[in-house]
């Protein structure tokens, strides 16, 4: 269980850090505003392919942080519990 916890925590913090950096680049007009990291995406006209890639990766990291952590903290333990319960019921 501890292994699953640290896996989920690693995913959550690592992907969350990457998302925070990208959101700080593309969704933050000012660090003194009250809408940091969640503003609508603002890409300038001179945006390169890397900027588009960054915006895409931002969403990827965001959902990876949430779904990855939920998988290891909720999904896999729930599956294991269900499997154990099923085996007990068979016996």
């Amino acid at each position, binding site marked *: 269980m501890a292994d699953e916890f640290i896996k989920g925590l690693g995913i959550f913090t690592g992907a969350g850090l990457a998302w*925070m*950096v990208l959101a*700080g*680049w593309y969704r933050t007009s*000012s*660090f*003194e505003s009250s809408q940091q990291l969640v503003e609508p995406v603002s890409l300038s006209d001179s945006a390169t392919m890397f900027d588009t890639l960054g915006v895409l990766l931002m969403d990827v990291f965001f959902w990876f942080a949430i779904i990855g952590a939920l998988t290891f903290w909720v999904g896999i333990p729930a599956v294991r519990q269900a499997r154990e319960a099923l085996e007990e019921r068979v016996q």
Partner: protein
Amino acid sequence: MTDEDTNTDDVRTDGSGIVAPDDETPTWRERKERTEGLSRLTYEYFERARREDQDLRQESDYVERDVLAFPTWPHEIIRNLAIASFFVGMLLFLSATLPPHIGAPANPSSTPAIILPDWYLYWSFGLLKLGPLNPELSILGGQKLMADRTYGVLANLVVVGIVAIVPFLNKGSARRPVEQPFWAAVGVGGVIFAFTISVYSAKNLIPMNVDLLFDLTFLLPIVGGFVTWAVLKTMREGYMYDLNRRYYRLRPPK
């Protein structure tokens, strides 16, 4: 052989005579090598020191820590280096990827709309705003004994004084909250009060009636403390029960 040394219990720690370790008796060749000159002096010196150390360890209730811990190098140094490297790397990464905007210089001729200290001083700032608690004494004709700002400073002195007294109190041998439900509840109430008074210090932080917020500032710690006390009081019965059961399982009553 050294029959006198092995038979007598008293240990000669004055350096006279060669005292061999208990489990290793020196050979005749080793004895001869140590019987004269500098070699004898050196041997006696170190042997005396070793024997004194051994006797001290045997006589004292000193617990050998060597088997219970690890040497500082490499274990703790490596660990501390890893932790320090992580945080330094995190600082470098964040400062490289998210450099903060450097704002316009402060204008000393205009008062900012919101005046707040750093967040860790919010509690002290909140204690300065206890004006509604400052009683209007009828004996003074409805006047207050002291100004509201004086009252706030006094509140700071009281709170800081209480916290400063804590290290000098005898807190007993209890190490778990369940063993002292009341004082644990007092502590939880204090933590909650530190939070609520911080929230109260910035009066517009929570969109709520300020009077209600003021009341909640003092009621929530009491409620939280009471809940803690009730929970711990309930837990303690089970806790003591488990302890007793384990104790009597180990040592059945006669």
